[in-house]
């Protein structure tokens, strides 16, 4: 199993390498023999070689530099998603997949155009929130944190329902974008560490995509305990706020 961590040294704002380590570990524990490859600006890789691709979040400035480089993979990424392979984009990395990103100075950058949504940034307020999201395909809600300065409009295939926190744009109760097994979400940080059930789900898809190895999860006890604490803290918070 090959894992590609793209732009690992520039789209790495919130300890997000943890996502790659989490996938690597669950594959190791499941005897699926993972190998992690990193590639950054100016490198060239073939997506066909990989089973899981990950990009984390960056500063607004870094995201534009990366976008310029990332576009060379547009066709490859389309084929990869089409083939039902697994990719995860967290934070503002998934904004690159849309039609355009407009920065706070009104400069408009063309996106990869895989989706029709458009992103507009501002530089006045950092929009942050602890969140609880749910998805049809997951039995347990997701917990995490969103930290952004953009509004994303026109997402037709979001992933999550927002139970607490913020969605793709103000007032939106939906978050992220998905297509086949490509997941984009503004959740930042080590999402797959904080959400062991989501990690397990991803591992099962990876298993289904390949030689159907048995996914081993017994080792996740601290992860599950940590998840329960955060979910309970956030739930209390949500209930207090609605009272």
């Amino acid at each position, binding site marked *: 199993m090959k894992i590609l961590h793209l732009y690992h*040294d*520039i789209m*790495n*704002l*919130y*300890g*997000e*390498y*943890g996502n790659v*380590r989490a996938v690597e*570990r669950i594959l190791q524990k499941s005897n699926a023999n993972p190998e992690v490859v990193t590639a950054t600006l100016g490198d060239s890789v073939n997506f066909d070689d990989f089973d899981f691709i990950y990009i984390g979040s960056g*500063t*607004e*400035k*870094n995201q534009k*530099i990366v976008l310029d480089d990332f576009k060379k993979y547009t066709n490859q990424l389309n084929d990869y998603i089409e083939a039902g392979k697994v990719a995860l984009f967290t934070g503002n990395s998934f904004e690159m997949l849309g039609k355009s990103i407009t920065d706070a100075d009104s400069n408009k950058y063309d996106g990869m155009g895989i989706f029709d949504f458009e992103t507009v940034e501002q*530089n006045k307020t*950092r929009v*942050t929130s*602890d969140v609880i999201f749910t998805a049809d395909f997951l039995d347990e809600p997701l*917990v*995490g*944190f969103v*930290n952004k*300065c953009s509004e994303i409009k026109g997402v037709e295939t979001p992933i999550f329902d927002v139970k607490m926190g913020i969605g793709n744009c103000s007032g939106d109760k939906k978050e992220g974008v998905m297509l086949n097994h490509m997941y984009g979400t503004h959740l*930042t*940080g*080590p999402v797959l*560490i*904080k959400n062991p059930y989501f990690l397990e789900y991803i591992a099962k898809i990876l298993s289904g995509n390949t030689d159907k190895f048995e996914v081993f999860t017994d080792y996740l006890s*601290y*992860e599950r*305990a*940590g998840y329960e*604490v*955060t979910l309970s*803290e*956030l739930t209390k*918070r949500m209930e207090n706020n609605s009272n």
Partner: protein
Amino acid sequence: MKVLFTIIVCKILRFIGKLVGKGSSLPGQIALKICPDILKRVQLPKYIIAVTGSNGKTSTVEMIAHILTQNGKNVAWNKEGSNQIEGVTTLILNSATLTGKVKSDILLIESDERFAQYTFKYIVPTHYVITNLYRDQLTRNGHPEWVYNAIKDSIHPETTLILNADDPLVSSFGKDRENVIWFGADKLSSDTEKFVGVYNDGAYCPICKSPMKYSTYHYDHIGHYECTSCGYKRHNTEYTVTAVDLQKGEAQINGKYTIKLALKSLYNIYNLLAAFTVASIAGIDQDKIAKNISNYVLKNGRVVTFELGGRRGMLLTSKHENSISYNQSIRLACADTNGCDVMFIVDAVSRKYFTSDVSWLWDIYFEMLNNDNVRQIVLAGKYCNDLAVRFSYTDIPSDKIKVTEDIGQACEYLDSDRKEYIYVITCFSDKDKFLGKVKVD
């Protein structure tokens, strides 16, 4: 009349506030309501020194105030650490005569980095120290470039900037600017040739975003850098740490002043150097400055020694959501050649706002603790499971690690006949939960 009235109200509120133990923000807040441009209407002293940055503000300001006061200057400064516009307004009006003249020789302001633009709308600092820009409270601050932009809006063209040359992002405030005074460290014996840490915020040039090359790293992304493309590089320094011996606890400034370190961390040396720089600029004799800061023990309570049963230890207040602050504390513990136990407490991520986010644990270089000097590690507090997960991704043997949510139980566990010194690394939000259970010196 309005100025007089505002000043009187502010002074009275502050007086009452002190009696009942209230913070110093409220009087200023009310003063600003009565007279929004009050800061423009007061007469300020010749020297207005501002200090901002992610880490080290409070310690740096305390040391500057200490040196200046020791040398007969009358300094007005925000001792209580209320560092947004309200607290600064309280400070200024409380130090002013009823006609609005600040009586001190020097006004010394610690300023919150994100809100500096509001504080310095009416007050134009003569000197503005920027210590560093790190990942700090990302759940509020976004990221260092976001904070950079906020600080940028607070800088007046006529202000002399005093910048940390070893921090590439901070240094970019001084690009193409003449009135800048630089401080930094020469290549030191404690430096590394390769980057040490989990993430490198100096990997790309802040100006053109090409890869940067470092000839030496002091710690994290602090060091001597040069862009491989646009030529942006570390500036030469006027105020320089020329040598350190952390084992001995000594640092040398400008090749001739030896400073004894009460806290043996590089981090602390930068605060000392910034204070040395400011005091020199204010005209204090450098021999005297060196004496004043040698062996100086900070009074802000961030380092506390204690007794736990028969054992000795030190609490190092570090900032949650601030990996470099943690890395420095960890480095200090790891350097203890007598052997030590280390306890981490993450119980409330912040004392000021709610968040349950623990992403920042993944930016801390806990791997450093896989070191023979570190004997046992205790992980405590509500988020002990998240700490345990993070540690499971280091190579530290799991039999060295004890995980227990209850801080009292963690203390009982440490109250053994072991002889090792104990380092407790935690934040303002959690430190009293520990200090309440031990005998503080």
